[in-house]
């Protein structure tokens, strides 16, 4: 077990190094002096010269990369051109909003997928299956940001039940914050459940065909018990992998939902960074989300043997 963990950890190292290389070189692709680019066009020439020296821009590229990487590892991601704040502070404050929305939504979507997917597989070919699968197919075709706009239109503009714009940080007042977060969470939960339902259904169908399920039924177990004790535990592993991938992807990828609901999250930070050519922020967001993706998938891989005992750890 320990050697498996170590090997899996070591496997993440080259990926992280290449991720860092890509983020480093992305900004170098922009024509011009990187120090000037990092400080913005109106920057003080002496500050540019100072940063030029600090980044070691006269030295070979690999030395520059090493210098940059040393800064990154010590938590120094530079300062935002537009706000002057350290990028690392910005990332941490923004990650809270995104994290709350993503974790709650993916949790709810997983629960929905387990229930709907298992039932659809159980009633395969029946009306219930058709209803669940049609719903999932429809969800896959609806862009999340449009779903968000529609919910906003119905519950905010027409019914006046929920606020249309605004935000209160979760750490300040969780209850008031939830009022602003209900719609984003509902949107994301619905959007993400489509693909998870399909995955859960197809693996549950595979398991339902197996002999031990027939055996469990022959023993006279209630269908409920068969589904919860025999089908679900054996069918959940592929969905869990997908949940991991989804979590990693969403941490940076809910920029559109944050835009619809004007939430100050990571994705929104990246978008405003791109629009205002704030490259330190763009670099920081990319690096941060990629590292989260790698870490989340690492955790899922390590959890895998716990959920699926057939996966042997060599």
């Amino acid at each position, binding site marked *: 077990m320990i050697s498996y963990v170590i090997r899996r950890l070591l496997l993440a190292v080259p990926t992280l190094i290449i991720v860092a290389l890509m983020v480093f070189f992305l900004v170098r692709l922009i024509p011009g002096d990187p120090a000037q680019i990092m400080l913005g066009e109106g920057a003080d020439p002496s500050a540019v010269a100072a940063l030029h020296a600090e980044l070691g821009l006269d030295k070979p590229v690999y030395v520059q990369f090493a210098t940059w990487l040393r800064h990154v590892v010590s938590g120094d991601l530079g300062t935002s051109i537009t706000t002057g704040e350290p990028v690392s502070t910005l990332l941490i404050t923004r990650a809270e909003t995104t994290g709350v929305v993503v974790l709650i939504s993916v949790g709810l979507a997983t629960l929905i997928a387990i229930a709907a997917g298992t039932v659809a597989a159980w009633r395969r070919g029946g009306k219930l299956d058709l209803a669940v699968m049609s719903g999932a197919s429809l969800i896959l*075709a609806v862009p999340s940001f449009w779903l968000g706009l529609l919910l906003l239109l119905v519950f905010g503009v027409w019914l006046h039940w929920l606020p249309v714009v605004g935000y209160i940080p979760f750490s300040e007042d969780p209850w008031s914050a939830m009022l602003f977060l209900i719609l984003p969470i509902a949107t994301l939960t619905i959007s993400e459940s489509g693909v998870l339902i399909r995955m859960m259904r197809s693996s549950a169908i595979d398991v339902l065909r197996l002999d031990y399920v027939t055996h469990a039924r022959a023993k006279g177990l209630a269908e409920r018990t068969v589904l919860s004790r025999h089908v679900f535990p054996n069918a959940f592993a592929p969905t869990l992998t997908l949940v991991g991938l989804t979590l990693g992807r969403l941490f940076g990828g809910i920029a559109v939902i944050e835009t619809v609901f004007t939430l100050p999250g990571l994705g929104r930070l990246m978008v405003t960074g791109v629009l205002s050519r704030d490259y330190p922020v763009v670099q920081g967001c990319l690096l941060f989300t990629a590292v989260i993706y790698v870490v989340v998938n690492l955790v899922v891989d390590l959890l895998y043997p716990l959920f699926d005992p057939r996966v042997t750890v060599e």
Partner: protein
Amino acid sequence: MKRPIHSLLGFGLVGALLVVVLLGLVWLPYDPLAIDLDHTLASPSLAHWLGTDEFGRDVASRAMLGARISMLIAIQTVVISIVLGTALGLVVGFLRGWTERVIMTFSDALLAFPGILLALALVAVMGSSRHSIVIALAIAYLPATVRVVRGSVISIREREYVEASRVAGDSALYTMWRIVLPNALPPILVLATSLFGWVILSESALSFLGVGVPPPLPTWGNMLSSARPYMYAASWLSIAPGLCIVATLLGINMLGDALRDRLDPRDN
């Protein structure tokens, strides 16, 4: 599941979209870019089926032109991503060894960036234009393509007919091109269909975020983005472009499912 109905519906929706795009080449109800400040935010009527936007532009005409722009971007992106991805996946899956290890490590690292953020960053570096969107999305979807192609090539290279070609003394290039590739085509075709849907979705998301196709050219995404401030005064502006995206994606996904059922023998 009643598959024939699905594929029929898929063909119907995609066919309707093609008709709209082709019709738009020869006829549009109004000039999609013509500003008419006397008729701003008009609700849907006989004169303007889908109403007008904040500049008095006809929404139906803009949605039709938007369909053409989105289609073109999607086709270009899918072609670039599939051609590059197939080439890489073929070489990597066939040769294996250190070539595979190096390319797959890069591909996996690229996969670690959320697609939309990677596309955003690339557009930020290249500047906002139709070409940079195509390039950015093609790069963002490249790792997925490489992965799928590599997967099927790996299983094909162990078959007897590939072994036969090798024993017969064919060059690796010949075996890859003439023996492995034709057999790997079905999953690539299914992938291309899904990719088409993903690209339509991502392009509309990028345009919605304001880094996609620059205005005044319309796309469904930037139409939705500019409709956001007029939710109270003109809710129809938020509905029509969204329905266009949903109909397109439904059609493409259904076609994709039908194609997979035909080409993938495992499911039958």
